[in-house]
């Protein structure tokens, strides 16, 4: 989320330290995902002061039947960069969804999103990824 391992480590340690302090005082929140949510807000705060990416209108294409074969040609790090380049909260939505660890209700809870917002971010993300794939691997498009 941060694109900077030092900042990420700082957020990680701060989050854990805060959690340990809360646990020591018996003040741990009862909601399930408070630690994830806490860490996410710290990440967002840490990036606030950074240079913000220009908001670009990315191309969007309809999903193609051969998208899976296009994705197979991608490097994992390319995907990581592509997701981390998305503006938040779309970045959070895509990251949590494709981790495949949480169901949609848990993602809504974690990222403080509404169903319509999550739906929109995922649809946009898929269509933008398809457009990027079509530009990057055009030969697979013609197979």
């Amino acid at each position, binding site marked *: 989320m941060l694109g900077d*391992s030092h900042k*990420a*480590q700082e957020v*990680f340690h701060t989050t*854990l330290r805060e*959690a*340990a302090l809360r*646990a020591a005082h018996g003040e741990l929140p009862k909601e399930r995902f408070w630690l994830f949510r806490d860490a996410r807000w710290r990440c967002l705060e840490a990036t606030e002061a950074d240079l913000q990416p220009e908001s670009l209108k990315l191309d969007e294409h309809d*999903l*193609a*039947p051969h*998208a*899976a074969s296009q*994705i*197979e040609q*991608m490097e*994992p*790090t390319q*995907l*990581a960069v592509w997701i981390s380049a998305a503006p938040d909260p779309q970045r959070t939505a895509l990251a949590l*969804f*494709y*981790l*495949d660890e949480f*169901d*949609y*209700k848990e*993602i809504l809870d974690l990222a403080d999103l509404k*169903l*319509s917002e*999550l*739906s*929109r971010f*995922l*649809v946009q993300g*898929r269509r933008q*990824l*398809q457009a990027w794939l079509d530009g990057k691997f055009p030969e697979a498009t013609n197979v």
Partner: protein
Amino acid sequence: MRTPRLSRGQRALLNCAPINQGKLTDRLMRAAVSRAADSPEFANQQNLDRAVAALVTLIPVPPETAEWFAEKDLVVGSKWTWKKIVRNPAVLAISIAVVVIAGVSVFQVLSRLNDFPGSATARKLLTVAASTRPVMLDPVSTEAGTLSDLFFMKHGLEHYDVPEEFADFRTIGCRVFEDDESRRIAQIWLAEKRMQLFLFPAERNTKTGAVLRFPGWRYVSQEGWVGAVKEQSGVCFMAALRGKETDLAPYLANQKE
């Protein structure tokens, strides 16, 4: 194949459909997915999602990030000691409850071990003995053994005989009364250690009416009083006094069985 008509909510749900169909736990989501299961658009979405999710699992974790988790315990919790376990309110409450339940069970088992036909009545009569005052009885000064005739002649009570172990003791008074089950009870007060004797009908089998017999002397105790009970000819005799079994034992010719 045509895409089925979906409401806006169903479309939104479908866009968030889980990558793994095994995670379809939500009823609304299940309904939306089943409606769109055959549509090519949804098939494309699922194919893309599965491919992306598979690629995500291959994203390498940076070595510096992996180091954060090298330690097995990120935050070491305090160890549970025996002292801590014992002081835990839940453990304490459960332990007390178990001890109480075990105590009650043992008490009930022990009580049952000493039970015999008529023991319940005998215990009730010990309570009567504890609350009886001499003025409540008709004054009679004689030998206890001779009262059998009185009970038969005056009250029509057959076999209300005082056993020979107690027949020679002097009496202070006696009476005949009915208990709460309308059974006729004979009560004799002795001068000897303010002992009281009771004669009451022995318990009978509710179906056959046969007397439920038991051999020898049996002890019962209640609220500091002790009684020695014996059955003979369908009548139970009980000698009762305030004290322990050892106070009554010398009066009994035969040992308790």
